[in-house]
């Protein structure tokens, strides 16, 4: 015969035992996951770069490195600025020394193992700076190729990495046509721009946007028709990078040029 005390004990064990498998059902509830991914939210973050306004000071890169604790001297960066110099004879020279962390301090163009190349001012047809960052694509190839789902897209469109789940295979690094991903030098997991999600979700702006003295970088919500960024994207001539990959990038460029890679 079972007494009351024993009965209560056993009931608790059974109930406790049942919770574990049932909670698993909750975690993997596909309907909920689906709703979270495709839910018609009120926010979809996008980014706007005005190439005309960028002077290549590199404040954005500095701010990003400090804000996001990206190893200062490591030769990787979440965002960077490229300098384009097109000569009169049609040559395009590009560089981004240290991702332009310290700006462009010399007129000579960094050609990596080929050293610095000097271009005389009278030979230059045009020159401009192009800030780059993760495009937070609508159809992100990095999310598609992650074998364990450590890279994911939030409901408001930002692509993030779960550092506790990334196995470090590098497939996402290979899958990104924009070269925005790398391995964290200390944590050894995939790393990328988060659009400063920790700031956005607190009502602040991305660190690079805050740091830009010329307003060349702006972040906005494309689902809000009153957002100034949305207004520019919907009414002016904007461009995106490498559209041919079908990634539907969400970083828009004002005044971009055909030389931009």
């Amino acid at each position: 015969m079972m007494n009351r005390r024993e009965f209560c004990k056993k009931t608790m064990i059974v109930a406790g035992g049942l919770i574990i498998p049932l909670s698993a059902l909750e975690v993997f509830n596909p309907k909920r996951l689906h709703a979270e991914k495709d839910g018609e939210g009120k926010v979809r973050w996008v980014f706007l770069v005005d190439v005309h306004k960028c002077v290549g000071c590199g404040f954005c890169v500095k701010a990003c490195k400090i804000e996001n604790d990206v190893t200062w001297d490591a030769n990787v960066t979440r965002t960077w600025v490229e300098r384009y110099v097109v000569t009169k004879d049609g040559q395009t020279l590009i560089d981004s020394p240290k991702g332009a962390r310290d700006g462009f301090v010399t007129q000579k163009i960094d050609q990596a193992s080929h050293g610095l190349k000097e271009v005389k001012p009278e030979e230059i047809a045009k020159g401009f700076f192009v800030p780059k960052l993760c495009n937070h694509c609508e159809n992100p190839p990095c999310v598609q190729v992650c074998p364990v789902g450590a890279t994911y897209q939030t409901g408001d469109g930002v692509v993030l990495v779960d550092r506790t789940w990334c196995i470090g295979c590098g497939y996402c690094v290979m899958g990104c046509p924009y070269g925005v991903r790398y391995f964290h030098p200390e944590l050894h997991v995939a790393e990328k721009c988060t659009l400063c999600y920790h700031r956005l979700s607190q009502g602040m702006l991305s660190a690079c946007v805050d740091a830009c003295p010329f307003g060349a970088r702006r972040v906005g919500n494309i689902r809000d028709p009153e957002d100034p960024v949305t207004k520019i994207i919907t009414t002016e001539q904007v461009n995106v990078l490498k559209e041919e990959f079908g990634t539907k990038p969400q970083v828009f460029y004002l005044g971009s040029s055909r030389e931009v890679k």
Partner: protein
Amino acid sequence: MVHGEAWTLKEFFVYPNEYIYWSIQIVMYPFMTGLVAGAFVLSSLYHVFGVKQLKDIARFSLVFSLALLPVAMMPLMLHLQQPQRGIYVMMTPHFTSAIAAFGIVFTTYGLLVASEIWFVYRQFIVETVLELRGKQQRSTVESAQLTLYSLLSMGAMDLSPEALHKDERAVGILAGIGIPIACFLHGYAGFIFGSVKANALWMTPLMPVIFICSAIVSGIALCIVTYIVTMEIRKLISKRKKKSTPRLPSTEELKSAEIQVVTITVKYLVMFLVLAITLELLDLIFRTYTAVKSWDILRSVIYERDFFKIFILQYGLGNLVPFIIFLRPGLTIRRALLGTLLVLMGVFMMRWNVVIGGQAFSASFSGFMDYHLPIWPGNVELFKEGLFGALTVITTPFVLFYLITRVLPVFGVKDSH
């Protein structure tokens, strides 16, 4: 230091975060899975299609593919930045990723090879158990052997002709299912590369097929090489032991059996080699002819920077020379060995040129990256992704093969197959 910085040399403009992230171990991965698949297909030629002349090498290559199997996973584990999390691929697979199914495909294939081997060896296992049981006095080694073989027999001790016939049918069926799975295992490795749309060199639907054909070529080549080496060792042993045990096959007998097996296997090798080269050339011609946006940079990689690796080492020494060697009449063991070694080198170079070549140019199409294989293992990363890591991967299957053949001998076993 950032992962990849130690062995990447940048030229002109390369995006700041771009490095050669997939290095020697990712070259080893398709090379090793290719060997597994190829070895299995070779054994199936006998078991499924009844190519009688391949009987001797069929058992050999089946066991060899088992020895290669765990090694196909080794380069991946050595490459992962978080190897302790590797199991997540099995636990939480994200099925939109081409890598996610790896665990499933690999496990299925492993089980299939293991069960086929079990059916092939069941008679031998049972006979060994009966023989050991019959002994009055057993040494410690023999007792251990008895336990091991009893476990391996899994209680299926029936040796009646009907039971043996059933074994034979099971082997046929498993080998039959195994061919598409082996091709899938490797075609799938090709898909992992071929589906990377960000990489201009990798992205082609031909990649899986090219990978399968070159896999079979390399698998057969490795089986021939190992077979020849094993036979040479057997010849040496038989020469030495002839006086004490006259029952052993004579050196002459071994020699004639060896050349016969090698000649017929080489024929299949040439067949798949032709197919592999045709597909690779088709890919190259198609790219040259269509000349899409990426062609400018690809052309400078293929025809200029990697010319020696692609046209001299891979196509020249790795394909053309062995082709001539094999097709000239009167094949000798020495020539066959040279040819198959060159074929193996050629397939390895093909993997190298795909994996490293695919990262030899920047996604900006405005610069190049040069790969310097780390030789001296100064730290764990340089060991894992360097020459010594690769050598560890290459030598492991031979050690495993040796260990497996201590339990399941590949020569001198009589069976009904």
